[in-house]
């Protein structure tokens, strides 16, 4: 460019030298010279200015032309086949929804074929990395490699999983891989069925795209929009504690994700792989709607059982059945602690509770799974609570610090605690007790006004049975007096576990509200156990709740919810590790497992020691269904658990095409260029300006010559 400038400057310099070379002469007719100068000065100045501008413009245009300015534009990721070798990270969604078939091929198979085809079109020198992505990216070929045969082999091994989808995580990984690549053309090719829920991180992905304009993101949607799918989206045990020989209640929710209503859906329930023991018929489910049915299974043997619900098959098989697991107890010990535990039985604080918890006649009570014991509140301090699954405190007076410590240790160890206030309850003492530091709610003030329980919108699992068409309501329950409940504000750090450790507390949940929205029952996790706090008595002194038909199921469900908290987590999402404490005599012993769809026992691991406990741990849970753990040649499993797919995987609605375009065409963020790791957009030359500039310069020079000639001609 400097050379060009020098060349261009030569004629200008000559012109300027001539311009500024001054010759001198004596002159007699100065008078006329002065007049001429005076009259022509303005005109001369103007002419000089015009010529100067034209000459400068000519030089400027020439210099610009020599710099060869060009218009560049970002290379769009329009196709594989484009100029130059490509470095791509291919992401193939293998979440559960990719098992949806069009009658011939699954979406995964379509994606596989598309990738295969596009590999064949790649130019020489192209490189490719390959990831299977669901809720986490699984590197098949972690870094871009020119060995495309290896990519093909990995592609052949690709199968669907029962995992959910997290496209943000997948795309972030791909950007990380490509950011460090020195190659020019870098692209991410995402083969997915583009399920709407999978794009929860759409905004973050868009931002990633904008922050990395040099890496194109191309989304290749597999499968058609608006495909029908009927799915079991929920299977859970409801009601109280599952007990041997008792009918155990299960709720099955079936959702219609299609655009047409579906009629006469047969729902079956089977235990432990046996033939279905119960079935129900859902008459009609509208498009986008969910219908639930309740089915009962009688499980005679105590221990672990797996229950499978099923609906007729459709094109996405994975969500046509759903499995859960329950631990059936033979006997559960419950302790009733009464503030007023003397006098006539009916006047005792635990009378109505005892009847609700053991709702059978006295002659059958001994066969009932629940073993109930009652003590006065005064005897609680120092009482051995270890054998009791749940402790009910009715009308407790004031807790001593020692009792507070004892109860805390019990709950943190996995026990359930239910608190009912009463006349004896010393509000001030409870507020100032150390228990106020960990209970999910505390009583704040005595309210002697009439109130009612909520009549609808029951959302907590304990109360969710009410509010449905056939579930009745608790809205008729009246309170004459209650202690106002204030849920504890749990700091966020206490609700998050450190590493793999479980969190110490959960955020308190409102189980029931008064009609005015004030909490009536609040529960929360404390360590491994749960606590529920009621705002009124367990006797008819302050409320008619104990006399209401809903009292028995409310207590049973509360008991079941709290008691379940101490048992192992038996329902997992795909990929989550199963972990359960077992007797110490099993420590060091190997165990086997049967996986979904197979009765074959496979070696699965050894019982480890952890924190002084013997623990069974199993991690390979990517497949949905029932898992049974056995020791030696036991016929009964020592443990069982179920893996359920994310209900969102059944929702086949797709991200709108306009949003896919937004991803493709996203403009880069201006501030992103300042950040480390920024990848500049790949640009191509769309127009070169040098030739028009040369022409423009020539025109200007021509104009200058004409004007200069005109201005310098003899003006006589």
């Amino acid at each position, binding site marked *: 460019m400097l050379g060009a400038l020098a060349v261009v400057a030569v004629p200008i310099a000559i012109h300027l030298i*001539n*311009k*500024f*070379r*001054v*010759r*001198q*002469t*004596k*002159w*007699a*007719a*100065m*008078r*006329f*010279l*002065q*007049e*001429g*100068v005076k*009259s*022509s000065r303005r*005109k*001369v100045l103007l*002419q000089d200015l015009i010529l100067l501008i034209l000459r400068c413009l000519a030089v400027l245009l020439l210099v610009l032309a020599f710099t060869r300015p060009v218009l560049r534009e970002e290379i769009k990721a329009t196709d594989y086949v484009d100029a130059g070798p490509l470095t791509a990270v291919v992401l193939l969604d293998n979440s559960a929804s990719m098992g949806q078939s069009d009658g011939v091929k699954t979406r995964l198979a379509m994606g596989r074929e598309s990738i295969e085809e596009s590999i064949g079109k790649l130019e020489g020198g192209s490189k490719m990395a390959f990831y299977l992505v669901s809720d986490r990216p699984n590197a098949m070929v972690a870094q871009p490699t020119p060995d495309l045969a290896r990519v093909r082999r990995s592609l052949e091994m690709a199968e669907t999983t029962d995992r959910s989808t997290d496209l943000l995580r997948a795309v972030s990984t791909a950007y990380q891989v490509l950011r460090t690549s020195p190659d020019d053309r870098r692209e991410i090719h995402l083969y997915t069925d583009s399920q709407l829920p999978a794009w929860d991180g759409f905004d973050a992905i868009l931002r990633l795209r904008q922050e990395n304009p040099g890496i194109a993101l191309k989304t290749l949607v597999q499968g058609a929009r608006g495909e029908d799918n009927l799915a079991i989206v929920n299977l859970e045990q409801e009601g109280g504690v599952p007990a041997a020989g008792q009918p155990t209640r299960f709720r099955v929710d079936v959702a219609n994700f299609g655009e047409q209503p579906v009629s006469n859906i047969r729902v079956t329930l089977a235990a432990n792989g046996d033939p279905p023991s119960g079935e129900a018929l859902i008459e009609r489910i509208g498009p986008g709607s969910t219908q639930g049915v309740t089915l009962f299974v009688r499980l005679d043997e105590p221990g672990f059982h797996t229950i499978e619900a099923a609906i007729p098959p459709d094109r996405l098989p994975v969500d046509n059945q759903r499995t859960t697991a329950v631990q059936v107890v033979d006997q559960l010990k419950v302790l009733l602690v009464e503030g007023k535990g003397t006098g006539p039985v009916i006047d005792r604080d635990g009378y109505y509770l005892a009847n609700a918890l053991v709702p059978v006649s006295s002659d059958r009570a001994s066969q009932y799974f629940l073993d109930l014991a009652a003590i006065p509140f005064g005897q609680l301090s120092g009482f051995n609570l270890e054998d009791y699954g749940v402790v009910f405190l009715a009308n407790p007076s004031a807790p001593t610090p020692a009792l507070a410590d004892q109860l805390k240790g019990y709950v943190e160890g996995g026990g359930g605690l239910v608190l009912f206030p009463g006349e004896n309850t010393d509000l001030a003492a409870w507020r100032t007790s150390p228990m106020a530091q960990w209970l999910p709610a505390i009583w704040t003030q005595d309210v002697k006004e009439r109130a009612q329980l909520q009549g609808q919108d029951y959302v907590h699992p304990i109360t969710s049975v009410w509010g449905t068409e056939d579930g009745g309501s608790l809205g008729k329950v009246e309170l004459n007096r209650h202690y106002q409940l204030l849920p504890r504000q749990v700091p966020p750090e206490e609700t998050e576990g450190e590493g793999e450790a479980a969190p110490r507390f959960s955020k308190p949940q409102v189980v029931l509200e008064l009609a005015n929205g004030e909490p009536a029952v609040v529960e929360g996790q404390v360590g491994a156990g749960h606590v529920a706090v009621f705002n009124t008595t367990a006797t008819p002194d302050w409320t008619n709740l104990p006399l209401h038909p809903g009292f028995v199921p409310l207590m049973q469900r509360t008991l079941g919810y709290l008691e379940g908290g101490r048992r192992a987590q038996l329902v997992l999402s795909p990929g989550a590790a199963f972990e359960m404490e077992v007797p110490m005599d099993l420590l060091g012993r190997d165990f086997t497992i049967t996986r979904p769809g197979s009765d074959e026992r496979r070696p699965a691991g050894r019982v480890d020691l952890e924190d002084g406990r013997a623990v069974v741990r199993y991690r390979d849970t990517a497949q949905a269904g029932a898992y049974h753990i056995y020791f030696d040649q036991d016929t009964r499993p020592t443990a069982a658990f179920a893996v359920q797919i994310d209900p969102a995987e059944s929702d086949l609605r797709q991200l709108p095409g306009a949003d896919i375009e937004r991803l493709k065409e996203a403009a880069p963020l201006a501030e992103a260029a300042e950040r480390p790791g920024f990848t500049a957009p790949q640009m191509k030359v769309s127009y070169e300006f040098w030739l028009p500039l040369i022409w423009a310069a020539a025109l200007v020079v021509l104009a200058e010559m004409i004007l200069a000639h005109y*201005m*310098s001609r*003899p*003006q*006589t």
Partner: protein
Amino acid sequence: MPDHELLDPDAISRGEALGLLARRVVEGYRVGEHRSPFQGFALEFAQHREYTAGDDIRHLDWKVLGRSDRYYIKQYEQDTNYVAHLVVDGSTSMTYGSGKVTKFQFAKALTACLAYLILNQRDAVALAMFDAGTQEYMRRTDNLGKVNHLMDRLAAYQPGEVTDLRKSLEDVAVRARAKGITVIMSDFFDDEEAFDKGMQRLSFGGSEVIVIQVLDPHEITFPMDGTWRFLGLEGEEQIQTSPRDIRKSYLESFDAFRKRVRGICEKYQAHYVLADTGKSLVEVLSGYLAFRQAIGRK
């Protein structure tokens, strides 16, 4: 020797050479002419004499011829002896010359020629050199033998100060008491009002005035190109300009000036002659003398 080579600056600076130059020019002119162009103008009738061959028939007295059938020529009082005042501008503005001679040198040569011509026909010549005033004055003489002295005075004169036409012409009018011809040679780069007043004074004195404006061809056409710095000869501030840029307005202004000078001449019935120093001395002199003779025949 060609005409233009007669004008050698060295020659003009020496009286002898100047005289020789004048003689050659005049003699060359008279080869084809038999009559002085300065004879018999606006002069009073003196007597008749008999016609002889070679007399100009314009002066025949036709009335006498008609009455007596004899040929008589009318003679005038000044016909044989008049004074020509040669007035030369010797100011510094006359020292400009784009070629090898300056305007002043050209004017000196022209003056020498006229003086020689007039003395040679036995008429009287007086010489005045002026700038801000009359700097050199040589009284009238009709002695051809003094022509060398005149040439020496003319050649030795060095230009001095700025021009003051009014004062200088008034001086000449006072000194030229007798009626005659006054020839003024100057560039007239003074203001025209001063020139007008001077001419007025000369006209009142009864002189016939001939105005010879001596100009350099560069002053007339202003042909320079590039950038020039002009240094004033009469103390004006210097000007640096591109002549190309101001040529048009300069020429308009200069032509207007010449028209005004000419207009003043016409006002006082004076002959106006442009002496372009780029032309040869002979061409300028003979051109005017031919014109004058043509006027005289009418």
